[in-house]
C-alpha cells in the first residue's frame, strides 16, 4: 500500500526531502528483501529505467526551495523527485495565512489536485496522505490547510495524517501564533490526526543529545526525518498477520486517534546519537524501554537529562486538571514501534501500566505494539513512541495565550482582514483550540 506525501511550503519541502532520503537509504541498507520492497512500494515508484521516484507532490508559492530539494534528491543517486510532480508560483504567501487559505489555495486548486490525482493513480492501493507543513508561515499553514481540505473533499475515505512542524517559541515569524491558531483549528476538523514536531524540542535534541555545536535547519530536519521514518517504515502490526502492515496510516490513526477531540500526536525515539558513535554503543531493550517510558511520562524528548523524579500520581490523589500537576504527562494512547535485533523478546510491560494512562481506556487498548526485526537507520535496536498525550498541551497553551494577547490589541488583524479572514473567524479558531486545551488538561482525571 502506498502513501502519497504532499510537501507544502519551505518547511514541508525541506523536511520532506530529508524524510525520503532517510527512507531510501534505510531501505537500501536493509538486508531483508521484503522490508526493502515494502518500504519502496510504500514511498517510491519505479520508472522504466529502474530509478526510484518519490510518491510526492511538492507545492510552494515560490520556486527556490522546491528547486533546491529536487536537486538535493537527485544528487543522492538513490532516488529523486519526478520531474512533473511540483507546483510553484513566483511569489510567496507573505507569511499570511489568510492569503494562503483564501486566495492562493483556491486559485491553484485545480493544478494541485491534478498533481495529486496523477500521483494517486500510480498507486496500486492508496494507504493515505501525509501533508507536511509548518504552521508558522503562510504557504505551509494557509495553502496547506486548504490543500488538506481538498484532499478531504476528493478522497473522503482515505486517511489523512498531517505532519506539522511548530516554530521556535521565541519567534521565527511574528505572526506565527496567529497562523498556528488558524491552522490547528481548521485541521482539527479536517485531519485524522496531527503528528507534531516542535523546533524547540528538536533543537534541544541536537544540542544536548547529539552535541552539535552549530545547528542548522538541515540538522533539525534530519532529526525529524529520522523520527518520522521510524514511524512510517514497514512494521508488523497485530492486524497484519505476520506480514508487514499494508495499512500503516489507518492502523496508526485507529490506535491513537479514535476520539475527535484528541488528535495531537507527538513522537520520540531512542536511541538518538551522532552517527559516529553508533558503532561503539551497545543497546539492551530493558534499558532502552525504561528510558523511553520515563521520557514519555516526564515529557522530554531525549535521554539526556531525564527527570527520574517524575512519577504518575498515585491512584488515591483526587482529580486534577491542571497543566503542570507535578510535571507528569498523562497519555490517552500510545503506539510503541520496536525495530531491530531481539524485538520479540523485548519486555514492554512498563507501557501497559494503567497509572500512565487516563482512566477511560483499558491499558490493553491504550497501548499498541508494532515490531520489525530489521534494524532501522543503522541502529541495531531502536524504538519509536508515538503518543496521544499531554505532551503538546503546554506548547499549545503558550501559542494560544500569545496569539490571544496579540488579538486583544488587534495587532496585525488588518493584514488578515485584507484577504478575507474576519475577527469572527479568529474567534471561532480560538474557541476550538480552547476546547482542545481543556480536553487535554482533563486527561489526568
Amino acid at each position: 500500500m502506498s502513501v502519497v506525501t504532499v510537501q507544502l511550503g519551505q518547511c514541508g519541502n525541506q523536511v520532506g526531502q530529508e524524510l525520503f532520503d532517510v527512507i531510501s537509504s534505510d531501505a537500501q541498507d536493509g538486508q531483508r528483501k521484503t522490508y526493502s520492497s515494502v518500504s519502496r512500494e510504500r514511498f517510491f515508484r519505479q520508472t522504466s529505467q529502474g530509478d526510484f521516484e518519490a510518491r510526492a507532490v511538492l507545492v510552494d508559492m515560490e520556486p527556490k526551495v522546491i528547486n533546491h530539494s529536487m536537486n538535493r534528491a537527485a544528487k543522492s543517486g538513490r532516488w529523486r523527485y519526478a520531474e512533473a510532480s511540483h507546483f510553484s508560483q513566483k511569489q510567496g504567501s507573505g507569511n499570511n495565512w489568510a492569503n494562503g487559505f483564501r486566495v492562493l489555495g483556491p486559485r491553484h486548486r485545480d493544478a494541485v489536485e491534478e498533481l495529486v490525482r496523477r500521483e494517486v493513480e500510480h498507486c496500486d492501493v492508496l494507504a493515505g496522505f501525509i501533508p507536511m507543513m509548518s504552521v508558522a508561515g503562510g504557504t505551509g499553514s494557509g495553502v496547506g490547510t486548504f490543500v488538506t481540505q481538498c484532499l478531504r473533499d476528493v478522497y473522503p475515505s482515505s486517511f489523512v495524517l498531517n505532519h506539522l512542524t511548530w516554530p521556535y517559541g521565541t519567534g521565527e515569524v511574528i505572526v506565527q501564533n496567529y497562523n498556528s491558531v488558524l491552522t490547528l483549528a481548521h485541521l482539527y476538523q479536517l485531519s485524522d490526526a496531527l503528528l507534531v514536531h516542535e523546533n524547540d524540542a528538536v533543537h534541544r535534541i541536537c544540542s544536548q543529545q547529539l552535541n552539535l555545536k552549530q545547528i542548522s535547519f538541515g540538522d533539525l530536519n534530519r532529526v525529524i526525518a529520522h523520527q518520522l521514518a521510524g514511524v512510517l517504515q514497514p512494521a508488523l502490526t497485530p492486524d497484519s498477520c505476520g506480514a508487514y502492515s499494508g495499512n500503516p496510516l489507518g492502523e496508526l490513526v485507529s490506535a491513537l486517534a479514535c476520539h475527535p477531540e484528541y488528535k495531537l500526536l507527538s513522537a520520540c525515539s531512542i536511541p538518538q546519537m551522532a552517527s559516529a558513535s553508533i558503532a561503539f554503543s551497545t543497546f539492551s531493550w530493558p534499558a532502552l524501554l525504561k528510558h523511553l517510558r520515563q521520557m514519555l511520562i516526564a515529557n522530554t524528548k531525549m535521554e539526556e537529562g531525564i527527570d527520574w523524579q517524575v512519577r504518575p500520581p498515585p491512584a488515591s490523589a483526587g482529580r486534577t486538571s491542571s497543566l503542570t500537576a507535578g510535571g507528569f504527562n498523562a497519555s490517552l494512547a500510545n503506539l510503541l514501534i520496536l525495530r531491530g535485533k531481539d524485538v520479540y523478546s523485548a519486555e514492554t510491560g512498563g507501557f501497559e501500566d494503567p497509572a500512565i494512562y487516563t482512566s477511560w481506556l483499558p491499558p490493553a487498548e491504550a497501548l499498541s505494539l508494532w515490531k520489525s526485526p530489521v534494524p532501522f537507520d543503522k541502529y541495531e535496536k531502536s524504538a519509536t513512541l508515538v503518543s496521544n498525550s499531554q505532551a503538546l498541551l503546554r506548547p499549545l497553551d503558550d501559542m494560544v495565550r500569545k496569539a490571544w494577547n496579540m488579538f486583544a490589541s488587534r495587532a496585525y488583524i488588518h493584514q488578515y482582514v485584507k484577504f478575507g479572514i474576519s475577527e469572527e473567524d479568529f474567534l471561532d479558531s480560538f474557541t476550538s483550540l480552547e476546547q482542545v486545551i481543556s480536553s487535554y488538561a482533563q486527561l489526568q482525571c
Partner: protein
Amino acid sequence: MTQSVVVQVGQCGNQVGCRFWDLALREHAHVNKRGLYDEALSSFFRNAVLIDMEEGVVNGILQGPLREVFDSTQLLTDVSGSGNNWAVGHLTYGSAYREAIVNKLRKAAEHCDCLQCFFLIHSMGGGTGSGLGTRVLSLLEEEFPDVCRIVTAMYPSAEDDVITSPYNSVLAMRELTEHADCVLPVENQSLVDIVNKISVMSHGAKPGSVLRKDSTVTSGQGSLSPTEKPFDAMNNIVANLLLNITSSARFEGSLNMDLNEIAMNLVPFPRLHYLVPSLTPLYTLADVNIPTRRLDQMFSDAFSKDHQLIRADPKRSLYLACALMVRGNVQVSDLRRNIERLRPSLPFVSWNQEGWKTGLCSVPPVGHSHSLLALANNTCVKPTFMELRDRFTKLYRKKAHLHHYLDVDGMEQSIFSESLSSLSELIDEYHQLDATKARLIPDAPRLSIAR
C-alpha cells in the same frame, strides 16, 4: 523569482539609486563567478524608473558606466528643478507629468514576470524628491494597489542647508503615512557619523588588522564608477540597505524572507509602518576565520545606537516588532543564541514579547563573510518626528516662506494644517504605545469553555 521596480526621484534619490544598481551588479557578478544562480541576475535589475526635474544627475548617469543598464524609456527629466518646494514637485510637476509617469511605471511593471514590490527612493527635504516622489507614491497606490510600496526616505538633519526642508518633510510625511506600506527612514547625520567611524577604523586600525577594501560598504572600488563623488560613501550605506533587504528574494537560504513578509510581520497597525534600519558589519577585518564571538558582536552592534540609520536609541524605547535578516554562513543556532542573549535588554510591547521575524540567506555580501540587517518597528522614531514637527512649527508660526508654497496652483493652507495634524496623530499613536512600556500588562483573560 520575483522582481521589484526601483523608482528613484530627485537628486538624492537618483544618487542613492545609482549606488544601489552599481553594487547590485557587482554583487551578482561576484556570485555568478562561482556559478550560482544566474536567474537572479537577469530579471531583477531590468526595472528602474529615474525621475528628476533637473537634468544634471540623470545626465551624469547616462554618461557614466551605468548607461548600459538604463535606457531612455526609463527616464523622466525636466530642466528647471523644483526650487526646494514640495508644492511645485507634488502639484505642478505631479499634474504635468502624471500620464508620463504612469506610462513609465506601467512599462517597468510589464517587464516583470511577477512584480512584488516598488522601491521608492527620495529625500524628504527638497522639492522634487519629496514632492514629486510622494506624488509617485500615490500614483503607485492608485495604479498598482496590490503591489507593496517600500519607501527609503532620506530625512534632513537639523543643520540642513535647505531652509524649507521642515515644510517639505512634514508635507511629505503625511503622504508616506497614508500611502506607503513601509518606510525606511534614514537620517543624513547618522550616515555622516557612520562614515566617519569607518574612516577612523581604516586609518587608526589596530596593528595586525587589515580593513578589507573590497567590501561594498566602504568603497566603490571595483565598482563601475571610477570617480567617487562626495556623498558616495553615505549613499553606499543606503544602497547596502536595499541590497540586503532584497537578498532573500535573489539568493537561496534555509529560511527565506520575502519582501511581502516584511510588511506583514513588521506593520501591526497600518499607519505605524516606519522601520528603523541598522546594518552590520560596516567594515570588516581581513581575518577570514570569524570565531563565534565576532559573530555575536555583529548581533550586538545591530542594536547599538551607533549602527542605526536614524539618530535614535531603540534600546531605550519600545519595540513593536523586529526583523533580522542574516546573510552568509550563519546557522539557526547562532540566530537563536543571540536572540536569547539580547532579548532581556530589549523592551518589547506586551502583546509581542517574542516578536521576531528572522531570515537566513546563504549568500553573504561582497567582502564580508556574513552580515545582518535589522529592521525595527520601534517607538524611537517618535523623537525624530517630534523634532521635525518642532522645526516645522518654528517656521509655520511665523508664516516664513509660506507664500512660495501658496502661490503654487492647487496648494492651500489647509494642506499644511492637515499634514501637521497627521504628524501629530502619528506621534500620539507612538506615544500611547510608549506609555505602556513601564506598565506590567497582564495576560488578556482567556475564553472560558463550558464543560
